[in-house]
């Protein structure tokens, strides 16, 4: 199946405010103990503007926008049950702290068929920018669909 027409598809930008409860629950879920990831006072004492999120926290933001994943799979005619998470990469240009307001823009990067079309790898990218338009974080997600 030729899905190349979908490469480059971009969804409308979405706004996100990094909530304290979400950032702390994420840190606790990974048994984080460093107080800069758990407590605003400790974070400020260490020089951060508020609780510092963990390096993989943006996955919680993209999970909240799972509707974009379902929309993409619908466009690509892929059954969500055939999907696995193959690869994940985050590039951090600036720290993300509680209270930060970001604008995320998601697009489809590369779509690659492998193993004679048995597998389709779908790379998506979400760019997160701050109010000044500066790039804060890139989320590169690769999903693999089993077509057989």
């Amino acid at each position: 199946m030729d899905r190349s027409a979908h490469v480059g598809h971009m969804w409308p930008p979405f706004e996100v405010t990094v909530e304290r409860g979400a950032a702390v629950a994420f840190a606790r879920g990974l048994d984080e103990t460093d107080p800069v990831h758990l407590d605003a006072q400790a974070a400020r004492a260490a020089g951060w503007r508020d609780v510092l999120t963990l390096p993989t926290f943006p996955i919680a933001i993209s999970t909240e926008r799972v509707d974009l994943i379902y929309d993409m799979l619908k466009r690509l005619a892929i059954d969500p049950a055939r999907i696995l998470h193959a690869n994940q990469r985050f590039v951090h240009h600036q720290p993300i702290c509680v209270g930060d307001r970001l604008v995320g823009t998601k697009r489809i990067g590369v779509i690659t068929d492998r193993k004679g079309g048995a597998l389709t790898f779908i790379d998506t990218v979400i760019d997160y920018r701050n109010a000044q338009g500066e790039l804060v974080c890139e989320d590169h997600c690769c999903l693999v669909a089993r077509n057989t």
Partner: protein
Amino acid sequence: MNASTIAAGTELPTLSTGRITRHRVARYAHGSGDLNPIHVDSDYARGQAGLPDVIVHGMYSMGMLSRLLTQWAGPGSVRSIETRFAAMLPVKASLHCEGVIEAVEATEGGSLVTVKLAATQADGSAVAAGSAQVFVAAGR
């Protein structure tokens, strides 16, 4: 840490999770918002997914690899991190995270350190592998 410990080939202090109980999987599901039944519902895992039991989130392994980095270089030090998910991790297994320095590049105010990452089960089988770039401030 001092400059002599930041060199290619140096192994970072390891991180082992111990047994990843159902409760810990549930806490990560809550924290990440990923409530996919394959992680939280044994009946679903056995029935619809054909697995022996629920599996730990792949992103839990990546999260632990990121903690391996920050326990070494400090909060906010990770400039990039990439992970390939090699195999499913069953609930009640444990995860062992390792990192080895591959390259060190001088940059403003410190060093940019490339670390090769691996997460394995107790029997040594691969769960996730990847790499990261970590900023280590001079004098840390």
